[in-house]
């Protein structure tokens, strides 16, 4: 259960300021329609609201919308809306607003990347009546409501959207429990309570305005500093905790930890099957059979995460585990490599073939992989060396990392993809996504190109029949597992540390983001 609210023994008190320190980085624009990344979603969740939310099991629940009904052919959805909500600038929330938002997201000038992908099948929005918006699709989309539940597709005031992008980035106007008061670049964003808030999502601990007067949202990139600030009481809540800090915090009187698995793909290694040496399935299998990660996961994460054998996060429905495919077997690995022709070894003990070393380049995004993870990669490097792999780790800044991915200049890598439905599989492994987007980014890093898999994923994405969908996703995952394209490691955990003076803190299940409308400080 992802959304375990923090202990709520005492009665909530209104007032007070909460200081939140994020390690995800500072957004360049607070409007999550623009671009669309984690820092925006994190902050946006407390300012902007979505049409739907999800419960702890991933089921869709109402928020600004009360219901969503597909047409029989699945090519249109009628979304009914609440009629009692207004944006903080006084603009009423209605179907016109929904239409304006979708248009804003789809406008190239907005330069959306996440929202525009999620709305890929949405052709148009029709205003049926003020409380009914009809989404017209180009093809059926079983994950539409999940998509609409994401903060990147949150609703903003149409009046606000007509402002310049610069202004909208500074302070997007939503319906949420807080509004943006000020943004001091590189330091903090200050949020203040929305006094007329009345649209809590289903599952919230209380209705009505938030308890906190004010949230100071700070940016502290260095994890050690962030934790030190929490310990020193300078900040009340931090995210992106290091595993060892989780242990320290758990055993501390003053600190507590809130965890939740981010939906979407698990943390995994993706083997580039499009190019040598991993274009040979035997080599991929040998790699997976020799990459011994369990001891490292235990020691590096201090028992805070569990080994995953699924491509999907535990908080995402339809995940399937095939543990046997990932058993460590050095002999098997050696045999496979011998079979694949990597029979000789050089002076350093690495396998060679035709004078070429069995080299695997491993670009690591230092922005995305936490230090413990990077250490785990070092251990993978050490264990696969025993069978003759020369894994070369390249820690890179984000730009360089993307550049090497775009050039297919890697053997293995690890990328994060957060999405609140199993449809993430289609994004990551559909052969269509080998082709890069115009920006050069291709989500299918494993270069998986299997028509049968494409078919399964398309089917799963279109059908509204839950069983059919489950079966399709299970088969798809089996194909990936059999082909040794991916080595799942563990769930991508949201780890929130907070001082015990903070009460009522919870994670909003959709993207496992901290929800502060229920929080108060003692």
């Amino acid at each position, binding site marked *: 259960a992802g959304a375990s609210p923090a202990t709520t023994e005492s009665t909530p008190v209104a007032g007070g300021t909460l200081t939140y*320190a994020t390690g995800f980085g500072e957004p*360049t*624009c607070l409007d999550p329609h*623009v*671009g669309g*990344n984690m820092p925006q979603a994190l902050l946006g969740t407390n300012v902007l609201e979505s049409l739907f939310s999800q419960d702890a099991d991933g089921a869709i629940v109402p928020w600004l919308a009360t219901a969503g009904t597909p047409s029989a052919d699945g090519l249109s959805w009628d979304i009914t809306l609440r009629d009692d909500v207004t944006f903080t600038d006084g603009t009423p929330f209605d179907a016109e607003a929904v239409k304006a938002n979708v248009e804003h997201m789809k406008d*190239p*000038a907005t*330069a959306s*990347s*996440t929202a*525009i*992908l999620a709305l890929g099948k949405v052709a148009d929005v029709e205003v049926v009546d003020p409380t009914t918006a009809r989404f017209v699709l180009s093809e059926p989309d079983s994950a539409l409501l999940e998509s609409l539940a994401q903060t990147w597709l949150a609703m903003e005031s149409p009046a606000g959207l007509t402002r310049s*992008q*610069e202004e909208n*980035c500074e302070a997007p106007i939503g319906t949420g429990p807080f509004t943006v008061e000020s943004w*001091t*670049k*590189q*330091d903090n964003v200050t949020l203040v309570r929305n006094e007329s808030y009345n649209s809590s999502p289903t599952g919230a601990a209380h209705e009505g305005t938030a308890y906190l007067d004010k949230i100071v949202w*700070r*940016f*502290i*990139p*260095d994890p*050690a*500093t*962030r934790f*030190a*600030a929490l*310990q*020193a009481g*300078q*900040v009340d809540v931090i995210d992106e905790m290091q595993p060892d800090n989780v242990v320290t915090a758990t055993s501390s009187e003053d600190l507590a930890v809130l965890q939740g698995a981010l939906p979407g793909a698990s943390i995994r290694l993706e083997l580039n099957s499009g190019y040598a040496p991993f274009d040979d399935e035997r080599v991929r299998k040998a790699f997976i059979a020799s990459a011994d990660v369990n001891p490292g996961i235990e020691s590096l994460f201090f028992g805070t995460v569990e080994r995953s054998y699924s491509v999907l996060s535990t908080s995402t429905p339809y995940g399937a585990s095939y543990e046997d495919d990932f058993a460590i077997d050095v002999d098997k690995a050696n045999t496979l490599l011998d079979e694949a022709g990597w029979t000789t070894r050089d002076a350093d003990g690495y396998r060679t073939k035709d004078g070429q070393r069995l080299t695997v380049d491993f670009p690591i995004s230092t922005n995305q992989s936490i230090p413990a993870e990077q250490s785990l990669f070092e251990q993978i490097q050490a264990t696969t060396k025993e069978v003759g792999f020369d894994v070369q780790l390249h820690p890179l*800044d*984000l*730009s*360089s990392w*993307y*550049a090497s991915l*775009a050039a297919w200049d890697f053997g293995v890598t690890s990328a994060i993809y957060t999405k609140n439905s199993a449809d993430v599989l289609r994004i990551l492994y559909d052969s269509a996504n080998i082709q890069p*987007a*115009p*920006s*050069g*980014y291709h989500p299918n890093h494993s270069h998986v190109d299997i028509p049968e898999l494409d078919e399964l994923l398309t089917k799963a994405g279109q059908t509204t029949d839950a069983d059919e969908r489950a079966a399709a996703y299970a088969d798809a995952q089996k194909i990936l597992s059999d082909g040794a394209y991916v080595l799942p490691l563990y769930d991508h955990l949201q780890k929130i540390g907070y001082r015990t003076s903070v009460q009522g803190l919870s994670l909003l299940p959709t993207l496992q983001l901290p929800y502060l409308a229920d929080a108060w400080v003692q």
Partner: protein
Amino acid sequence: MTHTVGNDGAEAAVRAPTPSLPTPTPELRRSSRSRGWVIVRGVLLRIGGGLFVLWAAATLTFFGLRLIPGDPAQAILGGPGSQASAEALAQVRADYGLDQPIWVQYIAQLGRLATGDLGTSYSLRSPVAEVIGAQIGGTLLLAALALIVAWAIALGLAVWSTRGGRIAAAVGSTLEIVAAAVPHFWLATVLVLVFSTALRWFPAVSTAGPEGLVLPVLTLALPLAGFLGQVMRESVLDALSAPFVLSARARGESENGVRWRHVLRHGSLPGIALSGWAFGFLVSGAVVVETIFARPGLGRTLLNAVQLRDVPLVVGVVLVVALGYVIMTVATDAASRLADPRLRRQGVAL
């Protein structure tokens, strides 16, 4: 000549005057007209030199950043991870003139810079001048405080350790050398560990109040104090053995009087001369310190901008830093001349 060398800052120490024999010039009063011309020429040369430095810095940075792999248009569209459409990219390229040949862009950039327009940051989407304006205050405050603290520590250490005999001298010079060798980042973490996590005296990250400045300022100041202290101590020692100190003592001056009235000034001369170099040192340090202590500032802005290939922002920051350096060298030069009349008569080139 005894050149005090030791690091890239030591060069300034070489320029620093040693309290040794100034040759007496019989002719002391030049005609005021030629003096005026010399000053005007000096000022013109300085301004010209300063402009040249700014131009060259902008040029180097511009072309340097163009060598970096990665598409600026992407940077504009929210970083490389953005799945921006081809039309959006084309639009941006046209908007920003990125489809022009590089030297056309270069000329355009120079033209804008010449009119004082630093352009618009790709990643922050606001005018570079505004971004820098918002960030510079924090960095300047940090650097200025660090410089003052470093000075105070260095001078205090130099004066104290040349007074208390052999042991104090050994302790003093060891402290200076160690301080100069301690990397900022290590110092910062140790300070945080001790003063924030363990003792809880000072906050680990910057706060609005002055207490948040203590650790960042110390982190920046201590290594600098080590460098300054080494040079200052040499000149304190030189001054202490200079005949004018004997002369002062023979006049009945007390030990404190000797230090306050004579030695301290001589000790601080190389410190003044080194302050221009210290500026660069502090800016470098600010990158690390601002990151670790989560302080807003130019250093952090720069690090982010470089990583995001935000050319206008990087060029802007580089220009501001270069301008700061130019101003700083002119200022320290003037300060040196003010403090040391011996320099006034020798024309010191820019």
